[in-house]
């Protein structure tokens, strides 16, 4: 598994039939620090958020979202997709500093 600085959970079927519509649900454990809060000494706590989330299936983007400071901590994304060929589904969350959390699952077409 690729470098994953933040814990994630992905739920999707491991196998499906061609043409099926499958649901994919993802969670990432992330503070989503807004940049608007101050610490006990009055200093601004720097913004630290997931800014972009992208899902590729056989290298084609099937879901993408830009996220901003208004998104809750530990963001949850759920979407559906149509099953084509067997292959990897890659999930990439990118923070403001460009750091990535990457997870891959394999979808096997039966």
């Amino acid at each position, binding site marked *: 598994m690729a470098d994953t600085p933040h814990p994630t959970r992905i*739920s999707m079927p491991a196998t499906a039939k061609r043409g099926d519509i499958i649901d994919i649900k993802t969670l990432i454990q992330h503070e989503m620090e807004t940049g608007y809060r101050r610490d006990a000494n009055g200093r601004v706590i720097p913004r630290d958020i997931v800014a972009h989330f992208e899902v590729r299936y056989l290298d084609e983007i099937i879901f993408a979202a830009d996220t901003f400071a208004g998104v809750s901590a530990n963001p949850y994304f759920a979407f559906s997709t149509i099953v084509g060929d067997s292959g990897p589904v890659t999930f990439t969350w990118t923070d403001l500093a460009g750091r990535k959390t990457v997870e891959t699952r394999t979808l096997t077409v039966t």
Partner: protein
Amino acid sequence: MVGLVFAASQAVGLCSLAAQTNLPSRPAIAKPGNVYQSPATQAQQADDGANPAMLWVGQGEKLWSSTDAGDGKSCAGCHGDAVASMKGVATRYPQIDAKSGALLNLEGRINQCRTDRQHATPYAYESAPLLSLTAYITLQSRGMPRDVKIDGAAAAQFEAGRSFFVTRQGQLNLACTQCHDQSVGQKLRGDTISQGQSGGWPAYRFEWQTMGSLHRRLRACSLGVRAEQLPFGSPEYVALELYLAWRSQDLPLDAPGVRR
């Protein structure tokens, strides 16, 4: 602040509903806390793929086999697979520790293994690792009813917990029972008051944007009536926790919960 004052005025309104406070208070039909949540929140709790608390469970599962601590012996090194060895364990907490005679909740027991058996520093209450391990171990009792001992060595603690539950406290002069027995189903700020059952905890609370322990929830209720917030893990809250566990009767554990 405005919100708090508003909550206070509503809570004072509840006082008038209260009749007596010194009754043993176990609801005739126990209902889990999630049935008082919105349908969307209930759905999120019911689906492990959507329940954000499962992120902590996943971390707990990792920690269970981690050899980083103290002597380099993991929890799994002594206890094996938690799915088998920890099944039903959470239903028996809080319980009296045979060695010290103290009442321990699950967090207390985990930290006892940390210090006495792993020779590592205890986890801070409310820290991510302690919440994660507590959630992971509690999950192994999902669907099982509570099985706490309230007699013998635990009797005095149980009575302390019961008495805490029925005693008026704080500037608003409200007892737990006045909300969680006598005002169930009523609205308080944005919440619907539940029976104050503990089986959904630790839980993910949207207001906190994170996972929290039962004691964090209790501290929120103490603050709500403008009473002193006791420290996390304080003996008073652990005794109260024992009373709450008994009070939930046959209600199956359904932690980790999701709350507004």
